[in-house]
């Protein structure tokens, strides 16, 4: 167990009263009592239907509101515990709420769950999001089962996606992480995943919890820790992911900071993990692979192209300091193309992303600014994707994605060379 704990004394006392458990499911609820209540129900159903003989606990990490506490049971100060006996289950399902004065960051929420898992010596753990409206008992089981029964250490989710959904994941995060880490985990950035108690303890003992990328988006780091330390990783199909429609959609700048910035940070802090890795290995998948569906979308491709073109023109000097001169010249040349003839070639996209990663490592400009400067180019890439695949089938899109992954792997030596090169002074 980690020597210094972040758990309050009361919480530790209550966890000790729960005793050792087999399963832990952690949720981090934010001001939404209905969603939290729904999540509790689904998790308990999951325990009853699939793990009736196992000792289980739900840890709800929340803060700054009363709704979640009420949803978990009573409102008793910093901690609330409720034990739910059920007809099917042979065991009592415990509910524990870790209540912070302000809403905890995702990193702090995860650390709390990991510390609880370590303290209770849990064998299988999962993190789920109360924001997922179609959280079902089977979904919980799909995250826990590979760890509990098959002895895997990390379970990444797989989803049914719409054709034009998750384009950042499909065009950058997945192919790049696959090329770097030699592991074909598709969803590094998801708010649902499973892990073993062994991995929880290993992650808990790492001195990274004060880092901003871990505070805001710890899941990819946990996956990368598992891959790099030879923990067994797999993927499990969870079906469609439906998010509650409250609040504005994700802000692209924030998404880039939390995913692309996070991936670059992980690359920078774990160089030894990926520099020597040569060829990607397939990851065992439970259930079908990723599914794509076609639905009508209200995308404004013209506006996306305009933002790309405008961005490249306005950010010329910044892109000049980040990109290789040849890559920059090629991007400037495609900007001049008309919408119907425009294509962002995959080799150019890969070189662009790798130039950004290397420049992030060398800190040629402020790193947050650097990550933001990639957004207009990403818009160019997705415009090209929308034009190319407007009538493509799921199989064709999957095939194109595979080709992009191969391109990322093929050009990895280019990244390695740029990464290890001494910083070039550009005026």
């Amino acid at each position: 167990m980690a020597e210094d704990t972040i758990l309050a004394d009361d919480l530790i006392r209550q966890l000790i009263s729960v005793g050792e458990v087999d399963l832990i499911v952690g949720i981090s609820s934010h001001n939404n009592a209905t969603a939290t209540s729904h999540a509790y129900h689904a998790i308990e159903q999951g325990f009853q239907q699939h793990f009736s003989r196992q000792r289980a606990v739900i840890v709800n990490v929340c803060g700054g509101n009363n709704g979640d506490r009420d949803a978990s049971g009573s409102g008793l100060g910093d901690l609330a515990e409720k034990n739910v006996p059920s007809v099917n289950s042979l065991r009592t399902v415990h509910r524990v709420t870790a209540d912070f004065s302000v809403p905890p960051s995702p990193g702090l929420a995860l650390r709390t769950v990991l510390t609880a898992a370590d303290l209770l010596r849990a064998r299988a753990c999962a993190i789920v999001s109360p924001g997922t409206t179609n959280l079902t008992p089977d979904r919980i089981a799909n995250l826990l089962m590979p760890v509990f029964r098959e002895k895997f250490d990390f379970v990444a989710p797989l989803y049914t996606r719409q054709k034009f959904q998750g384009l950042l994941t499909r065009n950058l995060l997945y192919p790049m992480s696959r090329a770097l880490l030699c592991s074909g985990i598709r969803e590094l950035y998801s708010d649902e995943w499973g892990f073993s108690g062994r991995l929880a303890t290993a992650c808990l003992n790492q001195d990274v919890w004060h880092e901003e990328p871990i505070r805001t988006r710890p899941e990819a780091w946990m996956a990368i820790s598992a891959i790099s330390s030879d923990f067994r990783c797999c993927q499990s199909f969870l079906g469609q992911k439906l998010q509650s429609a409250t609040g504005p959609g994700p802000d692209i700048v924030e998404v880039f900071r939390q995913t692309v910035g996070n991936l670059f940070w992980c690359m920078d802090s774990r160089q030894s993990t990926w520099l020597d890795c040569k060829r990607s290995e397939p990851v065992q998948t439970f259930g079908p692979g990723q599914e794509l569906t076609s639905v009508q979308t209200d995308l404004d491709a013209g506006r996306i192209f305009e933002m790309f073109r405008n961005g490249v023109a306005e950010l010329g000097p910044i892109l000049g300091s980040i990109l290789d001169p040849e890559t920059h010249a090629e991007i400037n040349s495609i900007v001049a193309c008309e919408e119907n003839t425009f294509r962002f070639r995959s080799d150019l996209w890969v070189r662009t992303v790798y130039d950004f990663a290397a420049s992030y490592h060398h800190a040629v400009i402020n790193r947050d600014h650097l990550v933001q400067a990639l957004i207009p180019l990403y818009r160019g890439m997705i415009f090209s994707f929308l034009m190319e695949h407007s009538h493509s089938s799921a199989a064709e899109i999957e095939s194109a994605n595979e080709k992009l992954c191969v391109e990322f792997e093929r050009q990895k030596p280019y990244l390695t060379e740029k990464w290890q090169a001494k910083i070039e002074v550009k005026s």
Partner: protein
Amino acid sequence: MRQTILQGLVQAYNNLVHMIADFLPRFLVMLIIIVLGLLVAFVLKYILRIVLSLTKLDRVSEEAGASRILRIAHLPSITALLSRSIFWLTWFGFILIGLSVLGIASLQEQISRLLQFLPEVFVGILILFVGLMTANFLSRAVLLAAVNAGLRSAKILTWSIRFLIWILTISMTLEELGVARQTVISAFSIIFGALMFGLAIAFGLGGQDLARKALEKYLGNTNKERDKEPQPL
């Protein structure tokens, strides 16, 4: 007559010898102080360079965009610049102290005024440098935010920010140096006030529709705008 001339010559010779005897030790002391200053300046430069290398100031300066400005101005890295500055400041200080040993009254007065002015020059340079760095950093942040939000006049916004910070920095530097203090403050107040007043009138009268549309777009249809882009995750 002859005797008087001889006495005058002897007197002049004695005065010269006396002056040389009086001046030479002070001159030697001055040389020693200057040489000692050179050594101290070298040591300080060396220590500062090591300390700054350990603190990775060059990387911070690179990230903040200050290094780019220095490169454009054909100046060395921030570490080299600071260590050289400390060398010259230290040595210059020792030279002035050495000169004051000579005991030339008018020179002493000038030196004392110069010594009083030196810290202000140093602070002025520091204000100028920090101001330029801030202007560069903030204008880049504004440019990126504007471009990613799809604003068409991103460069105008960026240059406005840069220009405002430059004006503020230059005014602060001149005020620190005490150059036409009242004039600088008045000029800055007039320019800044006129600029803001002009913008307010231009936006309020000339751009009523634009302002309404911008506010509607910002407050009312944010989600709709975002929906027109594919979900990244």
